[in-house]
């Protein structure tokens, strides 16, 4: 167990923002925590799971996780749901109405924005949800603040009967910094569900009277923000520019302009407009520095303050001292030249699939079949869009593959007339939001071939569990969904449900060919585990016999990172045509012995080396 779980008050630790949130939830007496994995928020629940006195779960999607937390809150328990920014889109349906109804036990939503898109399909500013859903937003700038703000969020939530959003970014979630614990767990009494249909049953008649109450709550929260210690002015001697900032942007401001006055917003929505106005009166110019949208800037302008911000600062991407300097220095009348540095010309190193990855087989098949439109989804298999497969044509959001494929089938353009439409989705994404698309396709008599790549894990986020793996968040045995039965229950005909070992390339190719030709929905389900999880069994590595390799390059097309080009040779055939031969080698340390490449090799040049002859040395005098 993690040492932090048993750490006492006053002890000091080097913790990521995510670890700090987990400790804070424990100290605050949280009884229920739920999440669906997503970078950069995944480790919040993984760490909460280490604390035995919190019920914690991987929910099937973010909406479910928030609803679980809402239910716990209505029972009077303190509850937390954590997600990445796009997860909030999924969860928002529940939250937008619960904000109107309010909460009983403290309800905190931790949402982590992947500013700069290190591992996401878009960039979003989750502070919008506070405005949209009338919820207060707290914005920690580092691990210590994440710890403190999550602790403070619960009493705030209970006093004003509102969900509270704690908005993190990658540079809080994944930065390790010092945290001093101020307490230990305080058990929080859950009074039980207090039945009150007018309050909790959001029919129009019951919801309507809540609207003025919600707006009154906004007004009260603004006064709380005005006097909140989380909103803090740092005095500075150089008053030419005063900064208004929040989250990790504060750190960059302090780093770059250490003598400037700074109004740091921790309780950033509703913003303390009166205090900001007073602050603005003390400086020549106010610059608003925020990641990423000009939310605060727009509100300050609307309040009549003449502020600078996105007119000089970028509207997307991460801020850093190197971003602030060229934007702000000219405002100070100090010309700033970006230092000339030789741009590195080193080749890109994009992420690749792993050795023995069970997705290699399906993508080998897809890249060898013509006339397909391949509609993708969110997961490791999105990498199929890259080299050498080039076999994925779209990726939008969790679960979109099946429904977008269905739409592409129904909206077929003239040039697509003879194309087959394929949807590619993983096990966890299918259960998250994909299976509704399958049901829709069946119901509406669509014609899509679904490739359900079941690797028994949430691969891209680090191999978490889901209802298809047979284990829960704690690694305990859990009921395991039967994908074939599920597909049949949703209406796929049993003949069109094909189970396949993705390592058997000829079968894999044959099945995709066969099923794409069918004029009805079909589903091909693979059955090998992610090679980075404990479920994968590593076998003896293979090697290429150089004298047998003919340079056909078939094994290279597999895209396995253990296989690389050893040499190239251009030969001229009798016909006079030249042809490039590509000879392969296998890195014994990387190869995990899955044998997929053996099936691509006609001359049988890929073999397992014979066991080394064991020499027994006898040292009689030892």
């Amino acid at each position, binding site marked *: 167990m993690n040492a932090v779980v048993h750490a006492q008050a006053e002890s000091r630790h080097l913790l990521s923002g995510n670890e700090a949130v987990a400790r804070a939830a424990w100290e605050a007496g949280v009884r229920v925590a739920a999440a669906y994995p997503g970078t950069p928020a995944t480790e919040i629940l993984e760490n909460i799971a280490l604390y035995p006195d919190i019920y914690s779960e991987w929910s099937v999607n973010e909406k479910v996780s928030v609803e679980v937390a809402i239910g716990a809150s209505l029972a009077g328990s303190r509850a937390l749901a954590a997600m990445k920014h796009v997860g909030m889109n999924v969860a928002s349906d529940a939250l937008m109405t619960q904000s109107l109804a309010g909460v009983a036990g403290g309800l905190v939503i931790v949402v982590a924005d992947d500013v700069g898109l290190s591992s996401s399909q878009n960039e979003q500013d989750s502070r919008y949800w506070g405005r949209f859903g009338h919820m207060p937003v707290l914005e920690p700038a580092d691990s210590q603040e994440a710890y403190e703000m999550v602790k403070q969020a619960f009493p705030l939530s209970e006093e004003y009967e509102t969900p509270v959003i704690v908005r993190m970014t990658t540079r809080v979630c994944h930065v390790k910094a010092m945290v001093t614990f101020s307490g230990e767990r305080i058990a929080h009494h859950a009074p039980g569900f207090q039945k009150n249909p007018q309050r909790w049953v959001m029919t129009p008649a019951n919801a309507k009277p809540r609207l003025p109450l919600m707006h009154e709550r906004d007004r009260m929260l603004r006064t709380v923000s005005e006097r909140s210690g989380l909103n803090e002015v740092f005095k500075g001697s150089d008053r030419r520019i005063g900064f208004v900032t929040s989250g990790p942007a504060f750190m*960059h401001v302090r780093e*770059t302009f250490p003598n400037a006055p700074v109004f740091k917003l921790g309780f950033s929505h509703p913003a303390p407009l009166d205090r900001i106005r007073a602050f603005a009166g003390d400086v020549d110019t106010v610059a608003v520095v925020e990641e990423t949208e000009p939310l605060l800037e727009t509100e300050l302008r609307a309040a009549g303050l003449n502020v600078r911000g996105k007119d000089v600062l970028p509207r997307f991407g991460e801020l850093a001292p190197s971003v602030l300097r060229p934007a702000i220095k000219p405002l100070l009348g100090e010309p700033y030249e970006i230092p000339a540095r030789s741009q590195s010309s080193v*080749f*890109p190193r*994009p*992420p690749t699939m792993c050795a023995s990855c069970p997705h290699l087989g399906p993508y080998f098949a897809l890249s060898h079949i013509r006339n397909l439109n391949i509609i993708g989804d969110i997961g490791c298999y999105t990498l199929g869009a890259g*080299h050498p497969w080039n076999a994925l044509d779209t990726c939008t959001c969790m679960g979109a593959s099946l429904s977008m494929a269905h739409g592409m089938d129904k909206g077929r353009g003239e040039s697509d007339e003879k194309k087959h439409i394929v949807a590619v989705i993983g096990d966890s994404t299918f259960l998250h939001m994909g299976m509704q698309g399958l049901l829709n396709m069946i119901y509406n008599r669509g014609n899509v071939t679904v490739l359900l790549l079941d690797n028994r894990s949430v691969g891209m986020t680090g191999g978490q569990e889901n209802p298809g793996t047979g284990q829960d968040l704690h690694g305990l045995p859990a009921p395991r969904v039967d994908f074939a039965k599920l597909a049949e229950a949703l209406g796929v005909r049993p003949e069109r449900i094909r189970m396949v070992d993705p390592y058997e390339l000829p079968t894999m190719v044959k099945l995709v060919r066969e099923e794409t030709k069918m004029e009805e929905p079909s589903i091909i389900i693979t059955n090998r585990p992610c090679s980075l999880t404990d479920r994968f069994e590593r076998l003896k590595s293979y090697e290429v016999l150089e004298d047998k390799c003919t340079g056909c390059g078939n094994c290279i097309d597999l895209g396995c990172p253990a296989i690389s080009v050893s040499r190239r040779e251009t030969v001229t055939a009798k016909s006079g045509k030249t042809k490039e031969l590509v000879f392969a080698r296998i890195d014994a340390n990387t190869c995990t012995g899955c044998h997929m490449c053996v099936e691509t090799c006609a001359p049988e040049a890929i073999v397992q080396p014979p066991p080394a002859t064991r020499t027994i040395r006898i040292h009689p005098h030892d």
Partner: protein
Amino acid sequence: MTDGITNILVVGIGGQGVMTAAEMLARTALDQGYDVKKTEVAGMAQRGGVVSSHVRFGPKVYSPQIDPGEADLLIGFEAAEGLRWLPYLRPSGVAMVNTLRLTPPIVSAGLYDYPADPIAELASAGIEVHTFDAGAIADELGNSKLVNTIMLGAISDYLPFPSEVLKACIVEGFRAYKPKLAEINAQAFDAGRAAGH
């Protein structure tokens, strides 16, 4: 090292132990009483992508990121990665780079070229660069996983605290969790330290 802040950039490829090495540096600095921040973007790192870990420590650290041209020390676990991140080093900085070459599939396939001689390019950059084959040292010691400790040993004489402090932090860590590996890591640290001059 301006404002008393030390900036160390550790770079390599997912799976090489870059983040573990950065963690050891951060923990040691914390034990020495410094304020510490450590950050990396590693969302897809385990899939063969580039990993860069920033460690900053001093009396008070604000931003977790090291800006280009501001690293005091650059630890490269792979030759081309050392070259890629070289613009992050200050002119007065020190680069410690493993001569290992790891070729990604897109290079192997002929879409891009691996630099012909990254070590020579590093050497001609006009900064203090030390390069050596950490893998060969690890193999001599009989365990290829020692590269990480060897690289830390190599950089240890360029830190603002004594080499022994970092060594003790590493060895104690092993003694607590994998005691059988404590002694061999102590040897690896010393071998790296000798190679880093």
